[in-house]
């Protein structure tokens, strides 16, 4: 699992690559949070384009980042969610937090 962090005009974009599970979530979380706490962006975008696998640890990861962004009066956006990963996203009710 790798995570690439980019900054772009008030945005932080985290591109996730590989499997998201409890083992890999820790690293991803730390990389994202350290950047977000430093930059305090308006929007945090999580890019799932290269994610092959995600279990409910990934949902925990998203919920945690959602709360963090609310604290900072910012927004969270999920982009490039594949059908395969969409299934667990829908089950989690995460789409009800806001429209994506």
């Amino acid at each position, binding site marked *: 699992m790798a995570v690439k962090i980019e900054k772009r005009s008030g945005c932080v974009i985290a591109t996730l690559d590989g499997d998201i599970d409890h083992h890999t979530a820790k690293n991803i979380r730390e990389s994202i949070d350290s950047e977000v706490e430093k930059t305090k962006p308006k929007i945090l975008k999580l890019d799932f384009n290269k994610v092959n696998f995600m*279990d*409910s640890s990934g949902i*925990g990861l998203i919920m945690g980042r959602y709360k963090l962004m609310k604290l900072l009066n910012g927004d969270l956006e999920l982009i490039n969610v594949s059908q395969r990963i969409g299934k667990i996203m829908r089950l989690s009710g995460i789409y009800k937090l806001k429209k994506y």
Partner: protein
Amino acid sequence: MKIINEMRLVFPSKSLNESFARTTIASFISCLDPTISELADIKTAVSEAVTNSIVHAYKETVGSIYISSQIYENGKITIKIKDKGSGIEDVKKAMEPLFTTGGEERAGLGFAVMQSFMDKIKVISKIGKGTTVTMEKTIIPRVKLNK
């Protein structure tokens, strides 16, 4: 119904074995030629159960996780994931969506995923003794199974 293949796997409750466990199950059931979506369902359910043994059952320690699986002639797959960890006080409550004792970063959705992604799930647990999760899913075999 005749068992056409089976396996048993034991490994320590280290988080790097979450991917090892689901990859092994994926390889084991590949003879049924599952669809990408069937495969993802089963890998996710196994990942949830194994993660629970690592995160909750053996919270501060490392213990053994036992997986066994059978494939039946009709395409039924059974998977048992067992630990000898802390056990669950109230299984019914634990299985409710969003219930978690795992703190901030756990979504409390592990059991909900297992229930929704598999055909059947049974949980047996005893405080101080451990937990056994048994799951079942039938895949329509797309290839002839011989031997």
